[in-house]
């Protein structure tokens, strides 16, 4: 299992919320903030602390698209696929990024594993339509990404990977 980035441990986070109802989303958010994803090792202590069946817990965890069950990619590309981005050509930008980075859009399924180099995932529309089509690279907004600039953005994302491993 990966190290906690913030120094918080799973047990520490659970203890803060122990005995309360309606806190599962808080717990998952805190664990994901600390570890980058919700590791399988967290499930049993959570289930015990909140007296929930592990399958119910897993159902809640995987219902929400924001929670990950495996480590996040080294370079994460978030694509806004809202209606304004869509009509301004986000689908083509996505296809170009997918080809250039060699990954398909979507979350990695299953538990654990090593962090992949790249991941492209969909970001819900948050109303930043003046930047449409909007692409986030490691959370940093880039936009408008015209079709002609998509390949350059993919190169930029690739250079971040090289920078991260060097």
């Amino acid at each position: 299992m990966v190290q906690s980035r913030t120094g918080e441990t799973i047990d520490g986070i659970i203890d803060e919320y122990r005995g309360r109802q309606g806190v599962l989303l808080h717990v998952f958010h805190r664990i994901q903030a600390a570890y980058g994803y919700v590791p399988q090792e967290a499930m049993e202590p959570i289930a015990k602390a909140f007296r929930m069946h592990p399958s119910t817990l897993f159902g809640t965890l995987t219902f929400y698209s924001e929670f990950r069950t495996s480590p996040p990619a080294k370079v994460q590309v978030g694509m806004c696929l809202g209606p304004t981005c869509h009509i301004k050509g986000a689908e083509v930008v996505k296809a170009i990024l997918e080809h250039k980075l060699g990954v398909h859009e979507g979350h990695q399924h299953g538990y654990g594993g090593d962090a992949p180099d790249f991941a492209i995932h969909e970001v819900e529309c948050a109303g930043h339509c003046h930047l449409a089509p909007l692409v986030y690279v490691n959370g940093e907004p880039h936009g408008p990404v015209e079709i002609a600039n998509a390949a350059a953005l993919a190169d930029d994302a690739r250079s971040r990977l090289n920078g991260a491993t060097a």
Partner: protein
Amino acid sequence: MDTFERLAAAAAASLTVTRTLVQVSMGSCGMHRGAEAVLAALRTAIADGLDAEAGIVGCNGMCWVEPIVRITRPGQPAIVYGPVSAEAAPGLLRDVLAGNLRPDLALGTEGETAVDGITPFSQKPYFQVQRRNLLARMGKVDPENLDHYLATGGYAGLDKALSGLSPEDIVKLLLDGNLTGRGGANFPAGRKWDFLRTARGSEKYMVCNADEGDPGAFVNRILLESDPFLLIEGLTIGGYVTGAPYGFIYIRDEYPLAVERVRKALDAARSRGLLGKNILGTGFSYDMEVVQGAGAYVCGEETGLISSIQDYRGMPRIKPPFPAQAGVFMKPTNVNNVETYTYVPGILANGPEWFSSVGLAANKGTKLFSLSGRINRLCIIEVDMGTPIRTLYEVCGDGIGEGHTLKGIQQGGPLGGVIPADWLDTGLDPANFNAQGTIMGSGGLIFLDERDCIVDLCKWLTAFDMDESCGRCTTCRIGSMRMVDIMDRMTKGIAGPEDLQVLQHLEGLMNNANCVHGQFTPKPFNAAYKWFKAEFDAHVFEHTCPSGSCRDLQEYSIDPARATGAVVDRLVASCPVDAIVRWDGSATIVQNQCVRCGLCKTAAPDAVTVGPRSEAPAANREVRYEQTDWSSTRSYI
């Protein structure tokens, strides 16, 4: 314990400027455009000797000119500038300090008279058509500073409620004002609160639905990010009226800044005795917390939201029982939209006439709208109910790009509809929309022009609904999938006229879904088919897209006679997906790899031709209805 008067008196001076004050608009729209860098540049310039103070301010709704900088000189009205880049900001501040007000960069002044050729906002058409009841503080106060809120009349509503009004009086005030739910259902808020007030038991909850998931609608974002105390005051009054001791604000995960700001605001309110035990020394106690969603659109449905708060999947359930009988933890609960709650403090402080004197007979007050799509100015505005769409389109949004014509407007989110351009003179009144079988929704208006294909947009909207279906009822889960399949075939030119019939059948079928998500999924198709029938017909009868935006109906090909020598190199280099390969002294396009981005056409316009697709593409799923062999289906009847 401080009384309200003492708090307000202590805060009154907080807005007085003694030294030139420069503030950067820190909504998430500004931060996406580099507002943090602007603030850092200004702070560096001030540390290097400029005589000014730096601060932040909320977003004022003019998202198209971010980053916005607001400068107030002592004793002068504030002047608002935008867009101001991080490189230009220190120079702007230096000029203003030297007495040059830089009218070239200014958007307007908040004063009543023009200064150095800078027009007051009150004389700008953009502001003249608006009535800023909820947005009164936007862009003028620091959203993280409780003193600013108190100094601009904040908490006067709560004080009035706690110092003499009974819960029944307040319910009556809300009913007199006829405040209706702003989320789309338009149910009177006073009646809803009265249900909870009269519900049995002392364990009750107030819930604020800030899970604004409609793509293209972001009106709640500005309220949460730029005036969080207003919502907190509204919810606190709700707690007093209904007797609920606790509240939840469910904010969607995509608004991290809103989550942070509301949490900070809750702490600030608690530390000043405006939240928690014994509020303002009156013995009334109420508290609330923020629940951060995790990316599920269907949690915007009230029973889904309640399920999400209590640790389960955010799946809606069948009503009744209604939340007023069994909500959070099976206790009576009231769920309202952000806009509904934020209206309450104003109604209490200014009287119900303040709210009900504007708008329409049936739907009073003002409503927030967000304009996006092809519109020139992306903005958030507040207008009277019943204002014609044309006012928003022409005055606030400044129309669409030159040389293009408005085709339609997508309203009400993915469960709303598409209305044609000749609705421009129709008033924004929920009744007008309901009469035509669609909804006005929560305030997102996406403007479309002749480049946008309605069938493709409908496919996108229905695909969004399919992705976000919770999966509990088969009607919604499979029905939405079938709708997307059919529309996918339409955009690929392999659908037939029978497909339109199937879509219409599905519409009746999906009315049986458990919740509004499934019931309203066919709404965009309904509305679009009603007004854009010709476009659907072109897709199913002629397999063409009149707007030319369905890329799967196009085919790019290279003319070998014209593509020779250096042109081939240019073509091969231009393709971002490596679909152009050298072939027999020229080049050719590998069709199943081509994404039809058109970059090769830009690189060598003479050598590339665009025409209709020569070969039918593969469908997502190969099953066709007329090919289904029903004879093997066993009957259970």
